[in-house]
């Protein structure tokens, strides 16, 4: 077993080992300290690598560099050398101790003791990760990564953890969309155990997800535009609520009061939901309407704003006056069947997209919570559903946490109903800290902003306080998976979607159905 170094210092939770001057050590690399005395194998993660030297004089290394630099400047490369560099210089790796494997290799325990000083540090063997196998769940996302090395060991999350909310955090180009598709692919292959409601504002998933071999039976796409192989997205006005409006749009206090006045006014007619918007949008004489119908309880300019928005909403192609054409029920049915439901809202504005997402999320939460409360045996059979929110900071920021907003409600209450959020954002720092703490699973991809990393550190279910440099240096497709199932933040290389599609076996043939014996029914 080739030695990568020798452990020499620090404490129970941290380790420092010395390695040769040429030892290629990477941030995030997983290594094992072999404690010969106890038979334990301590798993370490490198969090920093520095230079070391046998020479204790201050400035020794700078002096050497200066001498060599001066040679370079003179074009006199080789004028000086460093005798016995391998003996005089070395590397020092600072590590976090992740825990240790018991001598029988069966149990992985959190660190509570020090490995013997000067223990040999070696590369991990496949058996060292065997304990992870049972904790990686049934939604694979990639392979274990040790520094720059991709280990032949698949990692993922349990699908049930979708109910305890998932966060996907990365700056642009780091692989959020790819990861999202890989997760969706896992849900498609989960045989209906999980459902995924994916609201896609950019239309980037439609063609990609359709390539999955299981898409025919497990993917349902609704689109606000007329697109091939999609169902038409229609939201009935009668199914929308004032709360949906309050979630999607920024309303001033007087405007909200105006909404309630209008709702009260039109409710006398017996209309459902926001069906009154249609009639209100046709009002031509707003001053007269205000004076007569609302008894001047709403300022005219406030009413004009609400009116403008009402007209815009009723004119949306995805909004229908007829509640019967609404897709709400169809989406619920698809999710009950454990499908991936893709809502392609490309072409809609950001607020309208939130309006649709709010509507569907409320539908799902109402349906699942009703089952939980009234029909426990039905709820038991319902799949865990996750609602994917792109640019989640739009609805999960601190100033959005209103009573009317369904998304914080899902974050707080959804778990017991088996409804979770999957928040995708480039700026986790904009999310409400208290809501973020409800998220039990983090997928952390490359994040350049220190503030983003800081808020994740404080909310993560695993200690990632020392992983700032590693997160900063993650390459596209590399991520850390922090949840309660793995004993530490697991470094992973996310599968490429194209590879997932290529490697995925075809879906099993549908179970043959015995034709009904009609004759038996005939007397």
């Amino acid at each position, binding site marked *: 077993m080739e030695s990568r170094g020798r452990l020499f210092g620090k404490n129970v939770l941290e380790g420092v080992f010395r390695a040769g001057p040429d030892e290629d050590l990477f941030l995030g690399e997983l290594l094992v300290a072999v404690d010969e005395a106890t038979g334990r194998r301590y798993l370490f993660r490198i969090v920093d690598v520095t230079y070391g030297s*046998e*020479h204790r004089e201050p400035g*020794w290394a700078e*002096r*050497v560099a200066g*001498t*060599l630099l*001066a040679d370079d400047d003179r074009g006199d490369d080789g*004028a*000086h*050398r*460093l*005798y*016995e560099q391998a*003996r*005089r210089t070395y590397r020092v790796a600072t590590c976090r101790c992740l825990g240790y494997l018991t001598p029988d290799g069966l149990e992985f325990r959190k660190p509570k003791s020090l490995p013997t000083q000067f223990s040999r540090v070696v590369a991990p063997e496949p058996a060292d990760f065997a304990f992870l196998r049972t904790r990686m769940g049934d939604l694979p996302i990639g392979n274990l990564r040790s520094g720059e090395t991709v280990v032949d060991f698949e990692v993922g999350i349990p699908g049930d953890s979708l109910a305890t909310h998932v966060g996907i955090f990365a700056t642009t180009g780091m692989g959020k969309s790819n990861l999202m598709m890989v997760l969706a692919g896992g849900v498609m292959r989960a045989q209906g155990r999980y459902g995924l409601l994916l609201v896609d504002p950019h239309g980037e998933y439609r063609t990609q997800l359709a390539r999955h071999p299981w898409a025919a039976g497990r993917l349902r796409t609704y689109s606000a535009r007329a697109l091939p192989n999609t169902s038409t997205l229609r939201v009935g006005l009668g199914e929308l609520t004032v709360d949906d409006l309050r979630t999607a749009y920024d309303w001033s206090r007087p405007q909200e009061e105006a909404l309630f006045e209008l709702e009260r006014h039109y409710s006398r007619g017996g209309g459902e939901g926001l069906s009154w918007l249609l009639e209100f949008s046709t009002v031509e004489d707003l001053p007269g309407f205000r004076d007569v119908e609302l008894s001047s309880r709403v300022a005219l300019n406030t009413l004009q704003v609400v009116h403008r928005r009402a007209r815009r909403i009723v004119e949306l192609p995805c909004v229908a006056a007829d509640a019967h054409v609404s897709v709400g029920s169809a989406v619920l049915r698809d999710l009950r069947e454990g499908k991936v439901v893709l809502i392609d809202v490309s072409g809609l504005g950001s607020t309208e997209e939130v309006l649709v997402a709010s509507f569907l999320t409320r539908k799902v939460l109402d349906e699942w919570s009703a089952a939980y409360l009234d029909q426990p045996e039905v709820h038991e059979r319902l799949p865990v559903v996750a609602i994917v929110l792109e640019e989640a900071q739009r609805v999960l920021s601190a100033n959005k946490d209103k009573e009317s907003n369904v998304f914080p409600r899902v974050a707080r209450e959804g778990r017991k109903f088996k409804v979770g959020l999957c928040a995708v954002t480039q700026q986790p720092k904009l999310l409400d800290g208290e809501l973020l703490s409800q998220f039990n699973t983090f997928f952390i991809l490359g994040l350049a902003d220190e503030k983003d990393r800081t808020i994740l550190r404080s909310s993560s279910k695993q200690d990632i306080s020392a992983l700032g440099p590693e997160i900063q240096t993650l390459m596209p497709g590399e991520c850390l998976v922090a949840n309660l199932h793995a004993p530490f933040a697991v470094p992973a290389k996310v599968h490429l979607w194209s590879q997932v599609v290529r490697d995925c076996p075809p879906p099993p043939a549908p179970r043959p159905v015995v034709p009904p014996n009609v004759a038996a029914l005939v007397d």
Partner: protein
Amino acid sequence: MATASLAVAAERLAVLLTGGGRALSDPTNTDLVFEAAIAPRPLARAAAPDEVWAVDGGQALVADARCLQLVVTRAARVRFRDGECVEYEGELQARLVGCGEERAVAADLGLDIRPDAAVDLNLLRDREEWVAVEQCVAEAERGAVVLVDGDLVPDWRIPSRWLKGLLERAAAAGVTLVGVTKRSSLARGGAPLLGQLELEAEAALGPRSMWWTPVARTRPDVDVPGGGAGIQVVAARLDPDARFAFRVDLPGDADAEQVLSALAGLSDDAAFPGYPYPLTVADRLAACPGWLRDEAWLEVEGHFDRVGVPYDVRERAFADRHGLMERF
């Protein structure tokens, strides 16, 4: 009585440093016969010797009862060959000095040291170094160089006949002894000679020149058989980027320029340009840092425990009473 003011001392110091006096001297060694003219001359770098040994000594005062001291010394040896050093750390030698204990120590030192010689840390360390040098000479292959940290003039209590014998054995074995002194007391007109030579050489030969110059010859009583004149003392800058020139002692009959050129061949370490690399290793190896002193004292205390030396007896013997006074 005149006041010895700092201003007066500084004035005198300025005169000595810049006075331009030409008289050469070495306050620590009156046996030197100085060259009539000293002028740095260019030195070319040659291939390093195939085998080089280096010796350096270290010392530490482990316990100090003022009248009685426990000291440790050691001499480290390094064999440099094919670009790599083999290190011999040297066994720690612990001795008691004071209250007459040094008599027994002196009788045991060897090297023809008189039994009634005054014994102190300097002698003990020097003795270890020269024993190590002797060992190197015995083990070195023909053509090797043995480097000593310091000059080739042992402590005055080590008789010159012993050094003569060593030089003879070295010459017979084809081994060259070389002493390299980092801090030399050589002076010219009351100012440090090497600093003056460094400035003169830079002016005459250029800032990145390697140079050497004969300075003196010494100790006719250690003539090497077959010619020569004892030990020759030279000054040399062994690398173009060396911050300092050093005093180098060589056997009197050695071809100084040739030896120095070869020495320059292993003085190109980027960390210490101008200083032979094996000596830097020996220096590090021989050092007796604080932790080593502490470990030695712990061992002594363990022995005290076993033989039942009361703690307060130890405390009163070795307590630093300066420290106690300052504490209150």
